[in-house]
């Protein structure tokens, strides 16, 4: 089975923030901020990039749901499912 596109997108954006990290060995349930030394500015940039690429709104109140890779996947999947009757915005 091929990698789901949301996961690829998240991993690409994490790679932009933490270029030296080996994301293939990332613990999917670890707090990304701890595991990858991501600060508040990095996290905001991650949210902004995902907002842009996936075309979904990510309110600040929902940030805690995205603190782990599994959490972010589940959350973004739900958001896309809900918002994606027409095409996602580019």
């Amino acid at each position, binding site marked *: 089975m091929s990698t789901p596109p949301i996961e*690829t997108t998240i*991993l*690409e954006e994490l*790679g*932009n923030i*933490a*270029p*030296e*990290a*080996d*994301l*293939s060995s990332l613990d999917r349930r670890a707090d990304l*901020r*701890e595991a990858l*030394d991501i*600060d*508040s*500015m990095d*996290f*905001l*940039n991650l*949210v*902004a990039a995902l*907002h*842009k690429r996936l075309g979904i709104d*990510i*309110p*600040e*109140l929902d940030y805690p749901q995205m603190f782990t890779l599994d959490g972010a996947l589940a959350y973004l999947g739900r958001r896309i499912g809900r918002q994606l009757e027409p095409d996602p915005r580019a």
Partner: protein
Amino acid sequence: MPSLGADMEAGTLVEWLVKPGDQVHRGDVVAVVETQKGAIEIEIFESGTVEEILVPLDERVPVGTPLARLRLEGEGAEPAPRPPPSSPEATAALGAAPEGGEPKPFLPLARPGPAAPAEAELRPAAERILASPAARRIASERGLDLAALTGSGPGGAVISPDLDRAPAEEPRVAGPRARPGLDLDAMRSAIAGAMARSKREIPHYYLQHTVDMATALDWLAEANAGRTPERRLLAGALFIKAVALAARRFPALNGFFGTKNFEPSRAVHVGVAIAIRGGGLAAPALHDADRLSLGELMDGMRDLVQRTRAGRMRSSEIADATITVSSLGERGVEALYGVIYPPQVAIVGFGKIVQRPWVIDGAVGPRPVVTATLGADHRVSDGHAGALFLAHIDKLLQEPERL
């Protein structure tokens, strides 16, 4: 050669972006200098025409050495005869210290502090990676390691065409990527030099104060609810703005301690402490932070963080900061006591925001609070003024809508 940090004694010119005859404008990047902090883009602080390049590529020269001669705007096109000693200089020495006279507004460079003994050796030239700024930028974007490339530029420098010959990029997600052109060992030496000098020369005093952040965080949440992610604000932006406004009001904490005297600064350029992944620290200046809106301040911070981590700081950002803010952000611990970055005279630290029991209207309740600290130079100010300054920051943070 501008002074790009308290302990810099010399620098190596690795790239000229202008040649004799070129028109330049104040703020243009004209050269690249390799220092312990990485490759620094040198901005010019006058407009005019480049007359002569005085320092060739790859030459290491002491701070204060003129790098080029510039004919200022409005001066005759003919090569001016050597001016008599009493007349105003017809040419400006790029990067040299101004001799006497008032510092020019926005003069970004050339503030050589007192000569300090070298704390650290510069790395030998052979270990440096020569590369043009364009090549560094492209390499950083593509995640290429400059050290692995063969340069075809002057002195074997990697130039942008070399990058097209680089092996095809690995998938970005896969393994670890090479870090961009930052030499963390050299950066550590630079930090060591500046901090050792600070502890040797600056009699620090410290104050701390706990600031109730409930109002500020409520305001922030409301402001951010209506903003797309790229326009959202961080608490760190509020901290910087509050410090900048307070610094304007308390000049004894904002400026430079020169060879003998303190020179207060009317402009407030806040040095923003930025952690470098893998261990490193730089505090480039956010210019005129007191006059930026919070949105502009966020944009400026984001830009500064990105460029600093990619090793792309500008000369003015290195030399200009008049006070430093170091903020731990969401993680870490409650309080941070900074070491003043010479020749500045104050540093403000913010720990992470934590929930603590707090007395509100006679009853104890949970409240988000942050510990703000001040490290200041006792040669210039006393605890009394420092305390008023820190209390003023608290007051400003209670009215976030006015920041």
